[in-house]
């Protein structure tokens, strides 16, 4: 049964790319290391052999120019996916992403769409230190004109990649190599996960836990432990962090009256602060306890494994936070 066919997170992305490139000759992939598993794992496997060097373009180390080229090709009618094997490298490309792609449609009065996917891979841990660890989703989400998606499951990884490629606007697609081996049933056909729609991945009445990307998996782990103690948390997987599925978050908080926001980004001006502010503005009356944020500290990623262990948040932090507000 195809509906039970299991696929890993990384191969779900790979399948999305294969199917979209086969379906639409204007889709192409460009970026550093697209032919090397060092850079992109198995997400790009088979693409070069199938679609050739015209449409699967491994590049010199020139993030600014290559990302700008992806944007320019989109302006000239292509649908571009540009991959950055580490989100950290995207700082070199902030000008084409933010100044150009995000603004182009608005500042030109809607004259040209910008169908480009900026795909950034979070690749952290393993004592890689501060410049091989970052996730800049909060920065991207701050910018008008960009949509930002962060799939937490293989199903969503495929469906969001397809939706991002079909989207007429620039989309930042951020995945996490810590999710790459995760497997679940993934439909073989082309399907979309709608951008801007979150998902309640676990229902509960006691506390709402809003999370995204890898932290959804940690939240599910926490839920499984807490349920044994009689605590039912509701896990809301944002899936898209810009635009936020505000109604889904608010409805859950209206039901539970308590909120823990879990984010794999830094604390100050981050995604957790945004969700917290949304709830204070629009569901203040429903809150029975202060909102708790679980984020990275305002600190660069360390190398030392001992420090790393303390730096990254886990299900244990979520459990502690939940217990602290009930």
């Amino acid at each position, binding site marked *: 049964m195809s509906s039970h066919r299991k696929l890993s997170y990384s191969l779900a992305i790979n399948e999305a790319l294969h199917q979209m490139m086969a379906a639409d000759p204007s889709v192409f992939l460009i970026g550093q290391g697209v032919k090397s598993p060092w850079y992109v794992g198995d997400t790009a496997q088979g693409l070069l052999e199938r679609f050739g060097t015209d449409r699967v373009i491994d590049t010199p180390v020139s993030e600014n120019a290559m990302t*700008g*080229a992806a*944007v320019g090709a989109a302006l000239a009618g292509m649908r571009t996916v540009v991959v950055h094997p580490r989100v950290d490298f995207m700082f070199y490309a902030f000008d084409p992403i933010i100044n150009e792609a995000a603004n182009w449609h608005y500042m030109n009065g*809607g004259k040209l769409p910008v169908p480009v996917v900026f795909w950034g891979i979070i690749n952290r841990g393993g004592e890689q230190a501060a410049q091989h660890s970052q996730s800049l989703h909060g920065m991207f989400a701050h910018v008008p004109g960009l949509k930002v998606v962060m799939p937490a499951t293989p199903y969503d990884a495929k469906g969001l990649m397809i939706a991002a490629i079909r989207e007429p606007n620039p989309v930042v697609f951020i995945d996490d190599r810590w999710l790459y081996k995760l497997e679940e049933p993934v439909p073989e056909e082309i399907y979309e996960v709608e951008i801007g729609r979150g998902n309640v991945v676990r229902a509960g009445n006691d506390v709402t836990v809003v999370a995204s990307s890898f932290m959804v998996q940690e939240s599910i782990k926490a839920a499984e432990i807490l349920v044994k103690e009689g605590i039912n948390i509701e896990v809301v997987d944002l899936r898209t962090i810009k635009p936020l599925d505000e109604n889904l978050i608010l409805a859950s908080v209206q039901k539970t009256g308590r909120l823990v926001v879990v984010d794999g980004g830094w604390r100050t001006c981050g995604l957790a602060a945004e969700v917290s502010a949304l709830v204070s503005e629009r569901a203040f009356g429903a809150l029975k306890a202060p909102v708790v944020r679980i984020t990275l500290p305002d600190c660069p990623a360390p190398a030392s494994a001992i420090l790393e262990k303390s730096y990254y948040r886990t299900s244990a932090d979520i459990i502690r936070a939940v217990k602290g507000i009930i």
Partner: protein
Amino acid sequence: MRSLGGNVDYPKNLLVSFYRQMLRIRLCEEAFVEPILAGEVHCPCHLYSGEEAVAVGVCAALTEEDYVFGNHRSHGHYLAKGGSMQGMVAEIFCREMGCSRGRGGSMHLIAPEVGMLGAAPIVAGTISLTLGAALASTIRKDGRVAVTFFGDGATGEGVLYECMNFAALKKLPIIFVCENNYYATHMPIRECRVEREIHEIARPFGIESRQIDGNDVLQVYDAGLQAVEKCRSGNGPVFLECLTYRFRGHVGPDDNVQGSHTDIRPREEIDLWREKDPIKQFENYLTVQRIMTQEEMNTAREEVTREVTDAHGFARRSPSPRVEELERYVFA
């Protein structure tokens, strides 16, 4: 280097169109001076007066399908590529009927219907976009050429070098047109770089590169034609350094003359370049070659003046964007 006055066999209508196009740009630019001084035009206008031969010469070598990206000083590129003058003037007045519906102003001119894919004032920011348009052409094998216009100031940006490398590596159909007007905003070129020969920067990447007189529309057109031919036949990219000079200062009608509050350019230097006015030179050429009579040139000037006046009338009659639509166009 062949300069004006050499023997050419171009048909009269082509030469007349060069003249008219340069005139359209010049008269349209100079018509902004009064509205700027009167406070009717507020957005920063980087006037192109003096550099007309570059835009006209290069764009005449292109078809409507070819792509162009501009920069902060792109009124001339937009008009030369075939963008509507009414749409441009209305945009500079920040009106709804402007080519960017009043959301972009002078620095964001766009006319996708004629291949002008946009302009932006982040120095060198559109060079990589042009690279991508050239890449799209290569992937589709549709033969289009992409031209990126940038100034000497952009040669200080790293992305230019990244783009030249990739363009050369993939033999992309892109023409790098550097309009060297000797100033990067307020900075004279001697304060920006040791090596003054900008065209030399392309050679280490294996890119054919030429320095040309950017005030000689025929020379620019010749170089443009050759560059386009190379690109279309799969032998791009090409780099053209066009030596030219802006008559006005960096922004607005201020001439940035030494001794004035902006205090940048020697009066003698400006006067010298005024003698090399691309339009005046071309008028002489047309006269000596008996291609146009004085009367024909006068008529052309009157017609263009009318077009400019009409465009200003159109802009002034256009409504401003509606406040209710502030957030429209953030997303497609």
